[in-house]
């Protein structure tokens, strides 16, 4: 118990999450899925990191690894370290982990329909988490639950209602209320708005931003929607085939994009302000995560690829203190991607 650093001591230390060289494999009977390959993320207080990538890029595996919740077997953390508020997540006992999950770190899942238990009232579900982590009485927990509900924009009176009585957007608010109930220092949001309509999504995003201010929460926002990233994130990490191929502040990644894959993502999006513009999709598709090449996994789809790209490991290049890109093309100092020339 004593090893868990109380939440409040984090104040003097602005790093909430520190992942170093994390590698996650799923070891199946006759093959190994290399889900996450040697990624490092550092996240400070109150910052929102957008973790962007396509299906199978390793976004959710990363989030689950942070909570040490990977399904094991087959999921194995091969190497690396994860510290949340100074707690070494990979070397804590089960009991200590339970203390941290839902307390210091909580997670919001994609589908609000399945993350609430239909047989308990929403009040029960919010209060349960508070009671567990804050060690307070049932009555206090209920009071706090009512407060939380109000915070996420649901009238107090509805606390005794059951999940089926709420709409999709409301349910996701309840899930967010549960996640925030214990003032977590870190919130992992796995596509929390994908299942919602745009107008509802806008409301939920606004609310999450407000709450971030209120609770000083750092957030990892997993999404495939670059629009949402532009809207709420401070930092961006783009994942492809288990690697972070470009990482930096929002402005750096969006305004001075360096990696060909990130460029490809932008070119694939229909431009709402110019409907005549042609789409330039990335050709081909994601490589099989069981057979990743020695070098750059994006090389087969990359318009700038040279023959050696696929065989030699990529080199990491820093363009500023925060902006890092994993691409060998920049070994040639005159290399520029097209987006930058515009």
């Amino acid at each position: 118990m004593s090893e868990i650093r109380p939440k409040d001591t984090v104040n003097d230390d602005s790093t909430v999450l520190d992942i170093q060289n994390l590698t996650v494999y799923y070891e199946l009977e006759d093959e190994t899925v290399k889900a996450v390959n040697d990624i490092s993320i550092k996240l400070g207080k109150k910052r929102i990191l957008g973790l962007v990538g396509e299906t199978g890029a390793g976004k959710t595996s990363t989030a689950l690894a942070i909570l040490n919740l990977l399904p094991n077997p087959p999921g194995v953390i091969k190497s690396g370290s994860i510290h949340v508020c100074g707690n070494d997540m990979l070397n804590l006992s089960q009991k200590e982990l339970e203390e941290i999950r839902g307390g210091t770190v909580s997670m919001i899942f994609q589908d609000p329909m399945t993350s609430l238990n239909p047989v308990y009232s929403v009040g029960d579900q919010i209060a349960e988490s508070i009671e567990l982590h804050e060690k307070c009485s049932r009555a206090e927990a209920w009071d706090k639950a009512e407060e939380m509900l109000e915070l996420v924009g649901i009238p107090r009176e509805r606390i005794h209602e059951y999940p089926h009585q709420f709409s999709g957007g409301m349910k996701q608010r309840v899930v967010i209320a549960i996640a925030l109930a214990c003032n977590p220092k870190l919130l992992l949001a796995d596509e929390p708005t994908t299942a919602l309509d745009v107008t509802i999504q806008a409301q939920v995003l606004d609310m999450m931003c407000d709450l971030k201010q209120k609770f000083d929460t750092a957030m990892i926002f997993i999404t495939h929607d670059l629009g949402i990233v532009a809207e709420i994130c401070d930092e961006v990490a783009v994942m492809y085939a288990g690697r972070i191929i470009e990482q930096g502040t929002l402005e750096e990644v969006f305004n001075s994009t360096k990696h060909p894959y990130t460029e490809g993502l932008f070119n694939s999006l229909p431009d709402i302000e110019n409907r005549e513009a042609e789409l330039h999709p990335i050709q081909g598709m994601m490589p099989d995560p069981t057979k990743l090449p020695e070098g750059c996994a994006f090389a087969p789809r990359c318009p700038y690829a040279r023959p050696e790209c696929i065989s030699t490991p990529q080199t990491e290049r820093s363009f500023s203190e925060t902006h890092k890109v994993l691409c060998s093309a920049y070994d040639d100092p005159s290399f520029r991607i097209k987006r930058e020339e515009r």
Partner: protein
Amino acid sequence: MMADNILEVNHLKKYFKTNRGMLHAVDDITFKLERGKTLGIVGESGCGKSTTGRCILRLIEPTDGEVIFEGEDIVRLSRRQMREKCSEMQIIFQDPFSSLNPRNTVMETIAEGVRVQKKYRTPEQVEKRVLELMETVGLAERLINSYPHELDGGRRQRIGIARALAVEPKLIICDEPVSALDVSIQAQILNLLKQLQKQLGLTYIFISHDLAVVNHISDEIMVMYLGQTVEKAPSAELFRNPVHPYTKALLSAIPIPRVGANKGRIPLKGEITSPIDPGDECRFAKRCPYASDVCHGSCPKLREIGEGHFVACHCFPQ
């Protein structure tokens, strides 16, 4: 000059019986669609856009209204006659996982569509046609005996498109064909759909909740809210000059992938009106920032306010 309308939908209605009353899924939808054009239908989940698409194909029997396809009201056709009509209208589904029978190979799935056209009789002719179609949608020949679970989402969606094209339709209803796909694959499929339209002179009804996608592919956009059309206009016009408060809110809610682009959002407050036995009032009134007494008094009619620009709102032009 008369416009060449391939499809005319008049006062289409679909009500579902529920325990609590009549659910008005589609309530009095009227539109015309010119040959070779694309009509985009946007709206949030439950607004009746998919039901509209399925009613046009009579996959769901409409409660009332006319669907005039090439001058013939197909709602009146018998089931047998309707089966014949299937070779002229097709549908592409959202979910590339559930839209393909997991036990059928690519060949079997596409051949099912090919055999609808009676001109392909022998197995050799069918196979030749399947291969042609696979090439059209960009599927490699070697995948002919693959099962759907062996392929990724983008390729599955291509199979679905090939199956629809196989019957040589004139009109294709695309029901959220790209919402389940990753962005890079989504762009591939959108380009394919556009190219096919040019090549084969197809007419599309493109149903989606993603305004950016609809804007990209459609000539005209119809915005639906709780079973009704609230605004309909040529795409460029709708984006430049949205009139209905709901359209405005919807447009402002789209996250734009550019730093600092998302300003001036119109927030929607309030409850969503129940689609079960709605009263005679504007269905958006409860969430509308401009709602007044007249909005609660009666349901606004769709009227033309500019060339091809229709809107159903009491408040316009105030």
